[in-house]
């Protein structure tokens, strides 16, 4: 994440102030990265809890298969929640 913060200086060099388009693009990238990191962090937490029992010397085959399936199911769940939340928001707005 640090490398994204240091890129802000390059846009200011030419004009002394930042081009709004550049700022917006960089902010969008930072937001996307932050969301991906959050997703990965929660997915790792959930799948570790579901798939890894007493930690051994390595992840065995069944644990790896479980984690792979768990990742896909977590994405399915995330998409389901996103759709459901979006529907609810639209319904609430229609009421106003």
């Amino acid at each position: 994440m640090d490398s994204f913060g240091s890129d802000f200086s390059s846009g200011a060099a030419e004009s002394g102030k930042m081009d709004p388009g550049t700022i917006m693009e960089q902010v969008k990238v930072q937001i996307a990265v932050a969301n991906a990191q959050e997703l990965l962090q929660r997915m790792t937490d959930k799948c570790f809890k579901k798939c890894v029992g007493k930690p051994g010397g390595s992840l065995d085959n069944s644990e790896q298969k479980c984690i792979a399936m768990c990742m896909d199911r977590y994405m399915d769940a995330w998409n389901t929640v996103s759709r459901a939340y979006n529907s609810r928001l639209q319904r609430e707005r229609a009421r106003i």
Partner: protein
Amino acid sequence: MDTQGVTADPQLQQFIEVESQKERFQQLVHQMTDVCWEKCMDKPGPKLDSRTETCFVNCVERFIDTSQFILNRLEQTQRGRGSLSESMSD
């Protein structure tokens, strides 16, 4: 127009508002997926079966209902009794 700095730029203002709203949405999706996973997911299988999917959908709806319920009751409590701590001694 930009002499006061980037916050005076209406294009940036709108961008900030739109992105902030998107981010609030994303954060809630993360939070609800987390909470609903605990309630709805047994052992992860080869696909999300319809019963589990229904559970997630219900979970989202009930989570938002809960949030609204809490806000409404808090508002009622403060209007009627003057403080939350008074009503908590019931």
